């Protein structure tokens, strides 16, 4: 029986080379396995690296490697559109409820960007479940941290709202019992929706915290700023029970410095990616880099 794919995330401070490291890893693994590389970073460097136009439809790089780009704005737009459609279908009395005006403001609300990425993640894993690995080139730290924190935060709220809704339903049942001398069981659509949300966030949270399913790879450069931010990322992830599996010391020039960094993060496996003398643009230069550095 085919297992689900392994989800490999490359995270880190902006400019550390997450996109390049993701591309190199995807290319290396595609020698023997079926790989999907997903660009979640709005900067979308993968099209520059592979020198090809990418989109939300898969582009074949080689027979085992597909690449897609997630357009966050499009995902937010589609999500709000779906909500608007559902409201128009379901509302009986408030058909003139002006959603468009509200959505023009809501689409820029805090939280929607990371939720759009979460929806995209869920869709990708549904569609590409036959892949061996799905590699995610993540946005810089702030958005990535919010992405991974969203499921546990949403579950806190969701559990609270479900408790409140249960109490409302009990009161309703009591009132109908007093009024009509019998309990009227009416399925509560809001409660059903809350339970669906609970199931979704629980699933995603479990995927992120399962070390057999998810691998978190922190890319850093051998400089103080990068190292300090990396320490904060590891700590933040620990708070939400997500383990950092690997540290990638990218653009390494001084081997002794890289060894010192490895020592600093001794609890976590690390790998050194030396600085390339030539720009890593195009499949041939990526392949050449992998060959020359025994990666």
């Amino acid at each position, binding site marked *: 029986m085919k297992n689900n794919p392994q989800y490999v995330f490359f995270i880190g401070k902006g400019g550390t080379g997450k996109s390049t490291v993701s591309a190199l890893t995807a290319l290396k693994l595609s020698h023997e396995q079926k790989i999907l590389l997903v660009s979640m970073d709005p900067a979308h460097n993968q099209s520059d690296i592979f020198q090809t136009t990418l989109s939300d439809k898969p582009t074949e790089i080689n027979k085992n490697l597909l690449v897609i780009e997630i357009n966050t704005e499009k995902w937010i737009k589609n*999500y*709000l559109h779906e*909500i608007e459609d*559902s*409201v128009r*279908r*379901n*509302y*009986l*009395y*408030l058909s003139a*409820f002006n959603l468009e005006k509200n959505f023009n403001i*809501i689409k820029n*609300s*805090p*939280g*929607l960007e990371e*939720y759009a990425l979460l929806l995209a993640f869920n869709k990708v894993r549904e569609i590409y479940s036959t892949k061996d690995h799905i590699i995610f080139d993540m946005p810089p730290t702030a958005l990535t941290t919010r992405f991974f924190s*969203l499921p546990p*935060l*949403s579950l806190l*709220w*969701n559990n609270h*709202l479900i408790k409140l809704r249960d109490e409302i339903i009990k009161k309703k049942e009591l009132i109908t019992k007093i009024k009509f001398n019998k309990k009227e069981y009416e399925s509560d*659509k*809001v409660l*059903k*929706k*809350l339970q669906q*949300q609970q199931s979704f966030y629980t699933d995603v949270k479990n995927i992120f915290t399962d070390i057999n399913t998810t691998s978190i790879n922190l890319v850093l450069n051998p400089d103080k700023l990068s190292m300090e931010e990396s320490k904060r990322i590891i700590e933040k992830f620990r708070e939400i029970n997500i383990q950092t599996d690997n540290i990638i010391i990218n653009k390494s020039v001084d081997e002794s410095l890289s060894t010192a960094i490895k020592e600093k993060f001794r609890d976590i496996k690390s790998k050194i990616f030396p600085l390339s003398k030539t720009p890593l643009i195009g499949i041939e230069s990526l392949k050449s880099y992998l060959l020359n550095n025994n990666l």
Partner: protein
Amino acid sequence: MKYFFKKILKQISEKSKLFNEVARSKAMELSEQELSELEHTFAILTFGAFVGLPSPPGQITLDLLPESEKEIMLLLQKTDTAHEPLSVLASLFQVD
């Protein structure tokens, strides 16, 4: 005669000043009530988190929106009657 008309005009002027003051006072009361409700609404929206009324993440409320027509109607009703809290209270206690 002149004196009589002067007296009447004076009385009319005093009466109209009185009506004016009463009308101003009522208008002021209404405005103060409206102001109070507006300040109340503003405080709940911005500082609700500090008094036990925090807001959930946006996508949680958006996901629930299609199933929540009744809740939205309740809120709209509340904002409509926010200007007349005394009449709502009176109706609750069936005061005529």
